């Protein structure tokens, strides 16, 4: 696929020529990938989903009570404005995700450095850890932390969730670090060593600053992934967004409305994050 943006810069006539040069099949493919086309496809898909849900709900005699939803978003009482349960759950989800991600990055960096150290012992420790984490379903890992490690080390359900998410995501984060570090030219190592830097100094001042631009996009993707997988901690009743949703439903039987709302909240958060990533990528592309 040729990159259209460079051609666009030559002006409209260049763009027309660019389109004319393509075969019909390619041109259709190109139109389909254009922005208006993807928005249209997106809207059609959403329409189909909503329509299916509506018909399905009607068929089973579900009565929609959307008017009940706003009270779970915010309330205006005599005491003034108050956030509803859903935003409170969202804040908890974000708090959990941010803390878990910070921990995952730290752990991931350590694992990556162990793995790259070249020492047999540390490499095998890192590989064993990675194999263990990668081959463990997230849910089982959570149970392990909550039912086994929790009682042993006396930590509560929130800490168990935090550690579980951090450990689970540290595996991929460490791979991102490893790839980013390996993407830096070997000559940079040699230059750093040749002016007497220790390995730690070389990483800190020379290698890691250069690998950031390789790591940023996958790292943010992993952050989005973590926010989504944080929903799993609802099975041990940590009061985050998904748990709040379940609680409201068991009180009110508003299952369709609540799950649609919760899904929309997750989507808004992750989409915002993706937009932010695109912005960062552009900024870094200009800087280097």
């Amino acid at each position, binding site marked *: 696929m040729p990159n259209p943006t460079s051609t666009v810069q030559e002006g409209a006539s260049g763009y027309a020529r660019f389109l004319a040069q393509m075969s019909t099949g390619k041109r259709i493919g190109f139109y389909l990938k254009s922005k208006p086309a993807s928005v249209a496809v997106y809207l059609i898909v959403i329409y189909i989903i909503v329509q299916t849900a509506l018909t399905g709900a009607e068929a089973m005699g579900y009565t929609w009570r959307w008017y009940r939803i706003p009270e779970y978003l915010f309330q205006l009482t005599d005491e003034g404005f108050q956030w509803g349960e859903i935003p409170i759950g969202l804040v908890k989800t974000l708090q959990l995700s941010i803390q878990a991600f910070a921990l995952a990055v730290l752990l991931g960096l350590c694992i990556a450095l162990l793995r790259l150290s070249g020492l047999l012992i540390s490499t095998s420790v890192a590989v064993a850890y990675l194999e263990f984490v990668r081959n463990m379903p997230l849910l089982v890992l959570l149970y392990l932390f909550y039912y086994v490690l929790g009682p042993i080390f006396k930590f509560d359900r929130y800490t168990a969730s935090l550690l579980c998410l951090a450990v689970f995501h540290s595996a991929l984060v460490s791979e991102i670090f490893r790839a980013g570090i390996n993407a830096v*030219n070997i*000559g*940079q190592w*040699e*230059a*750093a*060593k*040749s*002016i*007497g*830097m*220790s390995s730690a*100094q070389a990483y800190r*001042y*020379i290698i890691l*600053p*250069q690998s950031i631009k390789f790591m940023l996009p996958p790292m943010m993707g992993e952050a989005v992934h973590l926010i989504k997988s944080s929903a799993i901690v609802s099975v041990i009743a940590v009061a985050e967004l998904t748990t709040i949703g379940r609680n409201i439903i068991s009180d009110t039987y508003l299952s369709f409305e609540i799950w649609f709302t919760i899904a929309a909240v997750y989507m808004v958060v992750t989409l915002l994050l993706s937009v932010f990533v695109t912005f960062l990528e552009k900024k870094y592309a200009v800087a*280097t």
Partner: protein
Amino acid sequence: MEEAPAVIEIQNLDKFFGKFQALNDVSLKVRSGERVVICGPSGSGKSTLIRCINRLEEHSAGRLVVDGIELDDETKNVRAVRMEVGMVFQQFNLFPHLTVLENLTVGPMRVRKISRKEAEARARKFLERVHIPEQAEKYPAQLSGGQQQRVAIARSLCMEPRIMLFDEPTSALDPEMINEVLDVMVELAESGMTMICVTHEMGFARKVADMMVFMEEGRIIESAPPGEFFSSPRSDRCRMFLDQILEH
């Protein structure tokens, strides 16, 4: 005349990459202030030899003493040697995310632990010496190849090394930039720096070398003062090699 003490002593050095022997029983002594030029065909082990001197490669057997420090598995020794030995690479290897000035100050500040002010003053002094004081605030990618290589030389000099190693410093340069780098190297040689240069710039070699070394297949085949080396090389291999590169 009293002989200066040896700052680099290489005794019976072997280097294996797996089964492949890149260095075979190499011995060489370099005295303080001496300029050694190493030449030889591609793959003869020139880079491997000088990379052993600051332990970018670990030798497999033999002894290597640099500035009185024996190079062995002791990390402390390795870093001590690297502080005394500067190295200039064929591909420059400047730090692309740092400005020219930062490239020059990062070593002195982080490794020698001197203040930023002092490091910057030193950096500007050496930029002056390599004739590009006006480029301090630029990034490496904004400089020509010749300028980048001169920055790389200045970066090494900022660590105030006693010995400088050059690995084909001009082979990656466009022809019109070779001389600006060689000029800086000649000035450095005239200032009394101990230097080991891997290069095929024979004009430069004639001008500065105290000793010429010819390598082939991991061995030193010939080592002699330049006069003797160029006029009457003893081995046929060396003569053929010289004929080849002096042709153009």
